[in-house]
C-alpha cells in the first residue's frame, strides 16, 4: 500500500466542513470512485469533520490518495486537540451522543467506509482515520 499524494486542510468553522466535503469529493473522483462510493465517502467525511469542529474545538484533515496493487482509494485522518472521548466503544454505538447530534456521526461514518480506526486520549485529543477503496 503506497501513498500517491497527500494534502492537509484546516477545520475550524462550519464553512470549513463544506470545503472539506468538496475537497474529499474531488479526491474521490480523481481516484475513480463511482457515484455511490463518492457519496458515502463525502458523507462520512462530513460527519467526522463536524465532530472535529463541534466537539474537538477545531483541528485538521489530512487527505491521502492510496494505491494497493490494482485498486486505489482515499484515506482521511481527522485530528483535534480537544477533550478526547472517555469511552470510545460507547461513542461508537448507534444513538450515542454527547451533544446535539443524532449520535450517528462516528458509527455512521464507520459503516460508510472500508477501514476505520480511532485513537483518543482524554485531555489530549482525538484522531479518526477512515479509508475507502474505489
Amino acid at each position, binding site marked *: 500500500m503506497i501513498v500517491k499524494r497527500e494534502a492537509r486542510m484546516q477545520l475550524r468553522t462550519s464553512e470549513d466542513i463544506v470545503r472539506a*466535503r468538496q475537497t474529499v469529493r474531488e479526491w474521490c473522483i480523481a481516484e475513480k470512485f463511482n*457515484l455511490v462510493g463518492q*457519496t458515502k465517502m463525502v458523507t462520512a467525511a462530513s460527519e467526522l469533520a463536524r465532530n472535529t469542529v463541534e466537539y474537538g474545538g477545531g483541528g485538521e484533515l489530512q487527505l491521502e490518495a492510496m494505491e494497493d496493487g490494482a485498486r486505489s482509494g482515499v484515506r482521511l485522518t481527522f485530528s483535534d486537540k480537544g477533550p478526547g472521548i472517555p469511552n470510545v466503544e460507547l461513542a461508537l454505538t*448507534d444513538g450515542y451522543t454527547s451533544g446535539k447530534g443524532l449520535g450517528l456521526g462516528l458509527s455512521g461514518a464507520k459503516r460508510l467506509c472500508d477501514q476505520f480506526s480511532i485513537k483518543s486520549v482524554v485531555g489530549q485529543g482525538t484522531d479518526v482515520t477512515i479509508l475507502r477503496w474505489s
Partner: protein
Amino acid sequence: MERIPILKLRDFLLVSIQIDMHDRLAMTLQDDLTAEIVKQRAKAVLIDISALDLVDSFIGRMISNIAAITRVLDAETVVVGMRPAVAITLVELGLTMPGVRTALNVDRGIELLEAAIARRDAQDEAAE
C-alpha cells in the same frame, strides 16, 4: 446574510435547496420555514432536494425536524427528488427518516400533498 428562498404558492410553501448548505444555513432555513408556515397559514411544505449530492445526518435531522414541526402546526411536509446515491448513503448511515413523506418529483409531491390535505379536510368535516 445568505438564505434559502421560500416561495408561497396558494396553500403551499416551496423550498428548493440548490447549494451545499453549511450547518448554520440549515438551521436558518428551519427557523424561517417555521415562521413562514405560521405567517402564511400554509397547509403544506414541499422541499425539493434533487440538486443535493449529499445529505448527512445534520441535514437529515433538519428535514425530520421540519416534518415534525409542520405536523405540530397542522401542516404537511413532503421531500421530493432525493438522488439514489444519497438515499443509499442515508440508509447505510442509519437515517431512514420514518416520519417524512417522500415523492419522486415536484409533480408527485404536490399530488401527494393535495390528497393529504383533502383527506384531512374530510376528517375535520366528519368531526364537526
